[in-house]
Every structure is written in structure tokens, then in C-alpha cells.
């Protein structure tokens, strides 16, 4: 298995977290975000020119959530159980909470860009975007607060891909002024503390230290 990506990219981290949870061997191929992800070679792996890209034998994949889904199914019997096995009705609950892409992801991605990446690259934060995105994310987190009051993790009583997919954006936001949105909601706050403390996630963060 090969993962082509960058340890500072949230999408790459999503895949790395999954691989560490499943405890499967893989080779990490660093992609220099100064432009390597737009090179002809990389475009063969992902025509959208984005990290990560993934290979296993003759299977080539991109889109972090397609990669994590494949890994979780193919290595179902290894490491952490990241799916919700059972009837179609049971599995549907995981699918539902895996749709984080449509509610949590848009405002949190904008905030990560404004509050983490822009300062890191010496660019000016857009306060209006921050305000608007915080308001949007707050509404999503209100729904999460109610859900996590009834369920230990988003989809069920154990950690699954639905929770894992949130880790990269949450980690960056907890290092920014937006952390107040999480801290002020008790069930969300407890869930954040638990999922970010997972050993597999610490291994992802360690990869960033190697690169600095």
C-alpha cells in the first residue's frame, strides 16, 4: 500500500488516521505541496491534482473518504473496527453520520484555512469569512451536541469512520480561536477530548513533527 500525500494536509491525515487505526503496513510517499501535486506524474494518480492518492497493487484511488471506506472494508478484521456491521438498517446509521462532508466540513474547512493555514503562510485572515463560518459551524455543532447527548460517538457506542473523518479539521481548530465553539458544548467537548487522544491519531501528529 502506498499513500501519496502531505502530513499537513487534512485529507491526507484522514487516510493516515485510518491506516494507523487498522494497523496495516503502508509506505508514505511525501508530496511537496509547492506544486508537486499538480505535476503530470501526480495527475496520473489523482486527476483532480489533490492529495492524497492511494495505491494497493493495481487499485488506484483518490478522495480520502473513498480510501478510508476501502481500507475499513478490506481490512475489516484488523485493528479497530471502524464500520458498523449488521443489517442494512444498522449500517445506514453510519452512512448518515459519515455525511459530515455536507455540514461539518464546509464551514470547518474555511475556518482551518483562515485561522491556521493563512497565518502559517503569512496571509491576512478574512474576519467576515471567519464570523460567517463560525456561525454556520455553531449550528452544526448544536446538532452534534444533541446527538452526542444520546450516543457516545456519532454513529453508535463505538468509534467509527464517522468520528475519524472529523479529526483533521478538529485538531487544527482546537489550536485556534474557534476552539470556543467546541469547548462551550459539553458533549461535543468530551467527544473531541476522547477522539483526539486516540493513539492512532497521535501517530499521525508525530508525522508532522518529523517534517518540521
Amino acid at each position, binding site marked *: 500500500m502506498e499513500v501519496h500525500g502531505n502530513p499537513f494536509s487534512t485529507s491526507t491525515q484522514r487516510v493516515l488516521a485510518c491506516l494507523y487505526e487498522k494497523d496495516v503496513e503502508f509506505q508514505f510517499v511525501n508530496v511537496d505541496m509547492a506544486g508537486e501535486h499538480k505535476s503530470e506524474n501526480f495527475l496520473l494518480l489523482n*486527476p*483532480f491534482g489533490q492529495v492524497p492518492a492511494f495505491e*494497493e497493487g493495481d*487499485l488506484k*484511488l*483518490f*478522495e480520502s*473518504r*473513498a480510501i478510508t*471506506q*476501502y481500507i475499513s*472494508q*478490506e481490512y475489516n478484521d484488523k485493528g479497530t473496527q471502524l464500520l458498523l456491521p449488521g443489517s*442494512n*438498517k444498522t*449500517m*445506514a*446509521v453510519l*452512512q*448518515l453520520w*459519515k*455525511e459530515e*462532508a*455536507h*455540514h461539518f466540513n*464546509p464551514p470547518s474547512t474555511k475556518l482551518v484555512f483562515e485561522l491556521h493555514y493563512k497565518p502559517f503562510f503569512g496571509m491576512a485572515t478574512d474576519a467576515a469569512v471567519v464570523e460567517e463560518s463560525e456561525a454556520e459551524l455553531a449550528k*452544526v455543532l448544536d*446538532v452534534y451536541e*444533541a*446527538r452526542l447527548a444520546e450516543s457516545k460517538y456519532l454513529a453508535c457506542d463505538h468509534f467509527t469512520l464517522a468520528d475519524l473523518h472529523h479529526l483533521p479539521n478538529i485538531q487544527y481548530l482546537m489550536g485556534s480561536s474557534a476552539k470556543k465553539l467546541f469547548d462551550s458544548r459539553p458533549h461535543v467537548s468530551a467527544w473531541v477530548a476522547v477522539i483526539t487522544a486516540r493513539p492512532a491519531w497521535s501517530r499521525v501528529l508525530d508525522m508532522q513533527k518529523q517534517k518540521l
Partner: protein
Amino acid sequence: MAAIKVHGSPLSTATQRVLACLYEKGVDFQFVSINMAAGEHKSDNFLALNPFGQVPAFEDGDLKLFESRAITHYVAHEYADKGTQLLIPGSNKEAAVLTLWQEVEAQQFNSPSSTLAWELFYKPFFGTATDAAKVEENETKLGKVLDVYETRLSQSRYLASDYFTLADLYHLPNIQCLLATSAKKLLESRPHVNAWVKEITARPAWSKVLAMQKQ
């Protein structure tokens, strides 16, 4: 009374996604119309079905779901043996190709096409002014996505394989909106994309979804 209920609006792209899937599978369902103009999707009753206050919401017996792609995923699996085969059965590697193109729709196609549908289709419908800068920005974004599709569809008859699957179906609602606007040029100017669009929008199940708008 059908065990399956869909709460939504025939004008909502997300609702149409679910309806298309149900018609492809040929399963009975009851449609419960939600009055969006009156704000019914924000009422306490509806929030009990979908706490995000968006259509559609879905019930199958005691299962309650929301998110159109989660609903269609469930329907396609639960009724795998009925109607059109919308999945790719087989190994995890074979199924992964479907998941990939479903993610491409959700992560790459959906955002610019939804913004264009809002600016060029829904806003005029509601009498609000179109934002020309947003249109230009999103036409450029969508153009780049469709360039990838053009290459893919020159190698594969449908996005994920040689037959119609959920990955193609997910695109129908936004594509139908764009075909009624100036943005249709983006689809028509790419030969393989254009051919694919014509095929998928001509499916009988999709015509049934469009017929619901006329009721």
C-alpha cells in the same frame, strides 16, 4: 400503506436524488410533501425527522434517515435485488471504484454545480438577483471538474463502470437544473460529458421524478 416514506419537495435537488433512486429500484413509497415556502422544514415536527432542518427525510419502518446520499445508499443495498442494479457487487476493490466516483460527486461536482443552480435557476425563480461574480467563479471551477469527467467518460461508459450506478444518479438533480440555464454550455461543449448527460437524463425513472414537479 407503504413502509417507506419520503418527506420532501419535488423541487428540491436532494429530494429528487432520493426519488430517482426509489423509482430506479421500483419500490413502493409514500411521498409526504413538505411546504418549504411556509417553513415547514424548520418546524419541530420536521426537525424530529432531520435535526438539520433540510429535506428530504426518510423512514422505512422504524428506520429514520436523512442526507440524500445516505438514504440512497441504504435503498440501493436493502433492495439490491429489485429493479436497476445501482451498486458494483464483487470484491472490495471493485466496490471502491463506485465509492470513489460517489465521493467525486459529493466533493468536486456538488459545490460548484449547486452554487450555479442556485444563482441561475432558483434565484430567478424566486425573483432574486443573480451574483455574476459567483457565476463566473463557479463556472470556472465546474469546467475544471468536467474536464476530468470528459477524460473519464472517454474511457468508461458511465462514471464508475460500464453501467449506470448511484455515482451517475447523484448528478441528475443538479444537471437537470443546469440544462435549463446558460451553464448548460459547460455540459454540451464536452462530447463525452454531453453524451452521458443525454443518456442519464433520458432514463424513465428520472422522467417520473420530473413528472412529480408538474403535479
